[in-house]
């Protein structure tokens, strides 16, 4: 298996700065495996992502992409191997302390349908310790100022996803994990998401983008890796 950390950037002009590259990696996976019951979802995964990097993650349905994102988000523990995310060991309780710095937008929105879009963000801000005065600004940034009082359950999939991106704008994250970020979004929203990715990388954070749209991701990612049969290639 190739070591993705040594893979060249897809486009030298997009490569992270040398200062970023010299800094400690934000994600290190070393021979990591994940089991769900009796099924081995991921096996012998090796990956290193440094500050300022945008990495595309491809793979067929069922290849383990979402599991890989949840693993990097510290939401599941590896069954084999070792790894660190934002310096926290994936197998130790230290990982709880870094969760607040990891943002994830999955392909199924995690909003509460009985709350309005603004109330969802207010809840997120209150739990994360972010002033809720940032909510209108975040909603405006994703073009949802006029829909702030709309129930999440009565909003389109695209609006719910925009709200989740607004949440990630509100909260200071070091690592962004995006699962099919372009799906259900119109052109304006796609530009906004790509702007968010570029901004996060420029700030020295890292972004992992799962997608089936290789052309679009290759245009914004520094490099790409592929999951096949639970293993990175």
């Amino acid at each position, binding site marked *: 298996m190739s070591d993705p950390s040594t893979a060249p950037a897809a486009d030298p002009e997009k490569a992270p700065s040398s200062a970023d590259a010299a800094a400690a990696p934000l994600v290190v996976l070393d021979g990591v495996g994940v089991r769900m019951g009796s099924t081995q979802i991921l096996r012998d995964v090796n990956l290193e992502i440094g500050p300022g990097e945008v990495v595309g993650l491809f793979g067929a349905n069922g290849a383990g992409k979402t599991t890989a994102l949840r693993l990097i988000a510290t939401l599941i523990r590896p069954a084999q191997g070792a790894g660190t995310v934002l310096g926290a060991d994936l197998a130790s309780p230290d990982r709880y302390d870094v969760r607040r710095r*990891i943002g*994830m937008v999955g392909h199924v929105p995690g909003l509460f349908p*009985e709350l309005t879009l603004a109330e969802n963000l207010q*809840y997120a801000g*209150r*739990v994360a*310790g972010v002033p809720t005065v940032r909510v209108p600004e975040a909603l405006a940034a994703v073009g949802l100022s006029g829909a702030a009082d709309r129930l999440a359950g009565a909003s389109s999939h695209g609006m719910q996803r925009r709200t989740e991106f607004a*949440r990630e704008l509100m909260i200071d994250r070091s690592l962004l994990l995006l699962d099919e970020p372009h799906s259900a979004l119109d052109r304006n929203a796609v530009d906004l998401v790509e702007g968010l990715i570029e901004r996060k990388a420029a700030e020295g954070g890292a972004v992992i983008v799962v997608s089936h749209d290789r052309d679009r991701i290759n245009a914004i990612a520094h490099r790409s890796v592929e999951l096949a049969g639970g293993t990175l290639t």
Partner: protein
Amino acid sequence: MTAGFWHQVRAVIDRDLLRERRSGDVLWITIPFGALALLLVPLAVGTDAELLREIGVGMYWVIVMLFGVLVAVGKASKETIPQQDASSLLGLDPAAGFIGRTVSSAILLLAFEVVVGVVAVGLYNLDVLGPAWLILTMIIAAIGLALLGTLTASIVNSTSAGTALVPLLVAPLSVPLLLGATQAYDGLRYGHAIVSWVLLMVAVATVVAMIGVLTARPLQES
């Protein structure tokens, strides 16, 4: 920087009460069904006023226990995995989540107890004895049931056994609550000491609260 523990608890309480206000699950479904269940008892045992007075308090608490646990389990298991993931990544302390869900369920259960209690008093011609003790008993029962339901939902969510586990987990621990509540009322009616029964309920609620807080993180991570 993450919000303080009690700030997170408050955020979860507000969230859950707002969700209930919008969905109306307890107000429009559980309370009417609870009242209906009380109405069915006279159909089964006849309209013997003395008998209904005798069994009325017991029936009231049985219905509160059954519906109460359903409410608490339902509320606590309503979160989807993406919602749970989002809360985890906001830095929500699982213990704060447990306490917040418990408090919001307890508030709803107290409302359920009051409304169904008014129906029971009217229907079974029950005497409202020692109002202060009765209110205390109702509050402790609501907290105990909310704790039990929230803990059960956490366990069910973390295992593959599903809701089949609910009766097995709930039945043994709800019995002391049911016993304490009914015996406390009988104590008021016949002039017996009731402190020991109230303390039994407090002890059960305390034990379940400690288990819930201490196991919140392991259950979430499993």
